[in-house]
């Protein structure tokens, strides 16, 4: 039984960030432009917190006939996206200089609209549309500072992203041809029925893999995530990277029999990413680059249960919530860690100790310290994985998971060390502090009250 979709709230969730760039039309409105940054995701946040799921909204007049929806899986991702973007937005108010402020805000709004919209999308064209809007607009965030490094990273990002988009388009076209509908919900069955099923699966894995940092498609990520302004890095590595994951969960033939080899492939790639990224990350000096590698590593860990769900279709209903929970945990924690890089050391010793404690909290959460979001998410995921019947690599799984934890530890320590060397005394705008503190609160405290966790 579907709930009634709260149409006004849904419209506001997408339209507010989408139309917000119009404020840039007048130079005199730049104050409002900056101040509105943390408010943009609020309708979406209310939607994610309060609306009764599942609901489906048919928009037959939009594009090729659109369907928007919210279910428990999407709710997790919507919560993550809205929470992280609003805290990062608050942080950005205190972070941005006046140079190219309007340009940054325009791209921020568009990227956010894409990121929120794709979570709500129930059909291929809507998903692809919002995904593209996010991808293209995020380029503006990556190259914002205009340095040679940023421009190079931007170019690599754009080339990889375009190739990914093409893979997705081809995959979606083939899939739509096979199922004769545009609904994502019918996609899995359609891929199963299509003669080109393996080609479609490969295209979708690769297309979303670019965004999710799948090994060998990840090159752009350690370049682009760190060069963006810090609040943009946080949303890139916390929220947008999850769009690739969500794409996989919605589009791959999860729950259908006969995709074992692809599941196995993803499990192997997941561990390769998880462990390999640690090797590269531990050599980095910039704490943001360490974090980018850590994102690849953590995404690798999330890919493992995705592969398991593909390999063991019967067990997918247990694995999917575990994946969503882990994504929520990682997104919030990683956002905090990125935001911390732009902080300064306060003068008082007590405040400094407090600062390091708060920085350490999400880091320890990534490691799975008891009573953190990580402990819950990792525990649920591990349990779901180990309970999966006929899991590829089953006999090595506990060892591999321990190795992944070690990889996480290595990167977290490296990050802490590099941050220790980087942070300097000084002053920062209040909004920057509040953005970071709120993000940390979300990760450590609010997490436990979120509808998908309770």
């Amino acid at each position, binding site marked *: 039984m579907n709930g009634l979709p709260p149409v006004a709230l849904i419209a506001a969730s997408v339209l507010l960030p989408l139309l917000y760039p119009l404020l840039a039309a007048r130079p005199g409105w730049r104050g409002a432009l900056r101040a509105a940054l943390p408010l943009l995701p609020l309708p979406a946040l209310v939607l994610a917190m309060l609306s009764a799921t599942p609901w489906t909204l048919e928009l037959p007049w939009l594009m090729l006939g659109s369907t928007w929806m919210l279910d428990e899986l999407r709710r997790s991702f919507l919560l993550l996206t809205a929470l992280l973007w609003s805290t990062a937005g608050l942080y950005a108010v205190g972070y941005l200089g006046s140079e190219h402020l309007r340009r940054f805000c325009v791209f921020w709004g568009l990227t956010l609209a894409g990121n929120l919209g794709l979570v709500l999308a129930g059909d291929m064209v809507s998903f692809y549309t919002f995904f593209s809007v996010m991808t*293209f607009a995020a380029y503006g965030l990556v190259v914002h500072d205009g340095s040679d490094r940023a421009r190079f990273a931007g170019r690599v990002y754009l080339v990889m992203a375009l190739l990914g988009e093409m893979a997705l388009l081809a995959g979606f076209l083939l899939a739509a041809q096979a199922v004769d509908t545009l609904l994502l919900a019918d996609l899995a069955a359609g891929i199963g029925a299509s003669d080109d099923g393996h080609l479609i699966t490969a295209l979708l894995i690769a297309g979303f893999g670019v965004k999710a940092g799948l090994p060998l498609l990840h090159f752009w990520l350690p370049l682009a995530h760190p060069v963006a302004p810090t609040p943009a890095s946080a949303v890139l590595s916390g929220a947008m990277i999850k769009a690739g994951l969500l794409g996989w969960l919605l589009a791959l033939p999860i729950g259908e029999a006969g995709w074992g080899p692809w599941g196995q492939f993803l499990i192997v790639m997941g561990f390769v990413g998880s462990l390999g990224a640690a090797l590269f990350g531990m050599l980095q000096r910039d704490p943001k680059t360490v974090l980018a590698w850590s994102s690849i590593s953590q995404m690798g860990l999330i890919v493992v249960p995705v592969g398991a769900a593909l390999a063991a279709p019967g067990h997918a209903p247990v694995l999917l919530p575990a994946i969503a929970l882990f994504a929520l945990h990682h997104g919030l924690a990683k956002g905090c860690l990125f935001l911390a890089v732009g902080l300064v050391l306060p003068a008082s010793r007590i405040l400094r100790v407090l600062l390091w404690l708060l920085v350490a909290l999400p880091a320890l959460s990534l490691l799975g310290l008891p009573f953190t979001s990580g402990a819950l998410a990792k525990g649920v995921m591990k349990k779901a994985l180990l309970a999966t019947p006929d899991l590829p690599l089953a006999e090595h799984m506990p060892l591999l998971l321990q190795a992944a934890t070690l990889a996480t530890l290595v990167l977290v320590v490296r990050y802490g060390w590099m941050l220790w060397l980087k942070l300097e005394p000084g002053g920062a705008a209040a909004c920057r502090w509040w953005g970071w503190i709120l993000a940390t609160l979300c990760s450590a405290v609010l997490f436990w009250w979120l509808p998908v966790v309770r």
Partner: protein
Amino acid sequence: MSLSALLPILALLSSLLAAVVIFALPESSHRLRTLVNLLAALLKLGVVAVMTWGVFRGVDFSVSFTMLPGVSFMLRADALAMLFAGLSAVLWLFTTIYAVGYLEDSPNRSRFFGFFSLCVASTMGVALAGNLFTFFLFYEMLTLSTYPLVVHRGTDKSLQAGRNYIIYTLGGGVALLLGIAWLHGLAGDLPFQETGHFQGADPALHGQLTLIFVLLIAGLGVKAGLFPLHGWLPQAMVAPAPVSALLHAVAVVKAGAFGIVRVVYDIYGIDFAYALGLLEPLAWLAAFTIIYGSVRALWQTDLKRRLAFSTISQVSYIILGVTLFGPLGAVGGLVHLLHQGIMKITLFFCAGNYAETLGVHRVDELDGAGARMPATSVAFTLAALGMIGVPPLAGFVTKWALGAGALAAEMEWAILVLLVSSLLNAAYFLPIVYRLWFCPIAAPWPAERRWGRLETHAWLFWPPLVTTLMLVLVGLLAATFVSPLSWAQLIAVRMYLP
């Protein structure tokens, strides 16, 4: 004479009479000329709107009379005709507004706008022509009326380009005429009809029909910029911006592409063309042109030249769609007739704005232009993204429909062509967009002019913004019954399921 016969004539006469009046007006009466121009454009838009509604409802607008024994002059409005007529009517209005602003204070405006109106009248005729003979008449009239526009500036370069243009197009005209005459000899006066004329034709004629097809396509391919007949197009760039906009988006290239659509669907019939094996070679030629145009565009430093090669590439999307056997492919090709027009006219308007306002003609001079001309640059950016096929813009709808058509026709290779072309489009458009927004202004603008509050002359400022809004809306509202996509689907349904 009944109303249904009067309306096609009125659509034609509105711009024909405007041309006569404008030629008659003295050079100095600018206001009156502008008024005549705009009234004619609005009148035609109204007539076309009424006719479109009528065709949607199933009214048959047609008029014909015999010119020579066996040769008749025939105007007829079917769904396909209204697709092209609608495009011309809408874009003519904006191009007129733009041209008035663009040519302010320049000499020979009377001559310019006279031929401008003639050109649009010819386009209307091409759209509404009911048989091959009438089509040919207006097709050649189009050639003759655009020549003075191409050479309007009167410089050596433009005269050279004009000479080239006339050689190519008249050559194409000869081939077309030969084909039409031959066909006339075989089958008599052929009105355009939705399933063609040769279903079940005598196999003994197949060889001749194939040769005639080649002649017709060669004649039409010149204007459509089909490789290797595209040589005139990049050179014709020396024309003033509104002319380029008209040549590339509406009149000339579209007349060629539209003619190919007519020949394939309404003369040969898609099933017969398919059975005769004519579609596949044409599909390959279109695919090659798509890639070729994009690759050549990569190396152009002149903005308008780059856009010209882009046109060569994009017009062949239409031809590719026609050759994908099946209604889905037809939808993709037909809808691109409109979509490409809206996007390309926006790009040319913008290129004209940069040239008129900043004196910028080359891509590398555009650094930082986004800060100086934000509205124009937003328009350019969206149109460029549309060309690449980024959703939800117009170009995406085309790409999706063509892709679906290619799969339905089991021509998977066409998808690869579309994807490669998208990447190439990105490769030559995105660097421009990058320069607009992310590069600092490098040097003073070559020739900057200021007009009060807006970033450019008001008559230049608004047309690209309106067409940009259109290219967003035709994508966003593609599923509604007023969209070009729905209209293309209507045509395809009538063509495949008569």
